[in-house]
């Protein structure tokens, strides 16, 4: 296990029940005038934070919800939302 995640519907569960859905990058950008670089930034680029990041997960083997949570990538542990998040 190691990782556990808190599903907003099912509560704290084994991390392997979930699918990772990427760093949180906000809603899909508007299509008009989107440059290749901006498109690529949204679709492919990551910050690769070594520390706490906001990210998407899906409770694949459970209720199926998509939700965001905060996780410390250097601990592989879910953490509380940091106070001064950017």
């Amino acid at each position, binding site marked *: *296990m190691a990782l556990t995640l808190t599903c907003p*519907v*099912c*509560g704290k*569960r*084994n991390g392997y*029940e979930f699918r990772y859905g990427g760093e949180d990058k906000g809603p899909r950008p508007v299509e008009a005038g989107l440059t290749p670089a901006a498109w690529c930034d949204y679709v492919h680029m990551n910050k690769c934070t070594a520390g706490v990041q906001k990210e998407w997960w899906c*409770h*694949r*083997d*459970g*209720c*199926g*919800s998509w939700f965001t949570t905060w996780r410390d990538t250097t601990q592989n542990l879910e953490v509380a939302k940091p106070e001064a998040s950017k």
Partner: protein
Amino acid sequence: MTEIKRESPVQFKVSPLKVEARDNWTVALEYDEEGQGPWLVDLAHKTRWDLQDRKVGELTPCDLAVPEAPGECTFADNTLINRMNRTQASIFHLGAEAPGLPDFSGYTDVTESTVFLALFGPKAFFIAEKLTALDFLDPAKKAPFLYQGPFCHVPCQIVTLEKAADGSGGFLLTCSRGYGDSMVHAILEAGSALGLRPAGENRFNTWIQGLQG
């Protein structure tokens, strides 16, 4: 000429002692040497509904309230309503007959979608712990309650109807119909050392009638 018969996704290797034809199903009522429990019963023929709506909490399928919080269940009149999430509930009709699907687009009949099994009796949860990490014996949980999670690696809906600290009690399990063979094989293998045997609908009825007092 081929008969129009329905087939369950689950086949036990032993033949039933008593059967009953119902809505083109051949329902096993009793097996030879069902033993002292725990038991595994195939409930494929019991009607299941999916209900989804933004206001699912305000709906009253079969005149029963949909429970408020995900994971909670209502169990009365042989009907079990399981709240799945903000917008969804599943409804299991455990009696001999089920009402027709209500005329509301939020309902889908999903009887055909899933394997439907009951595992109950002494040490039922000592079998479960060989197949899943889900904590059925959590003292904070009061039966009946719903878990949506993996059972033998397969995503399932599992409703605990009865439980005790000594591992006895029982639960209902649904998973994708295609897993029927694999799931039954896995459960019987895990349960063999604890005396798990296939049983018929009669034994299931006795159990749930006892639960509903």
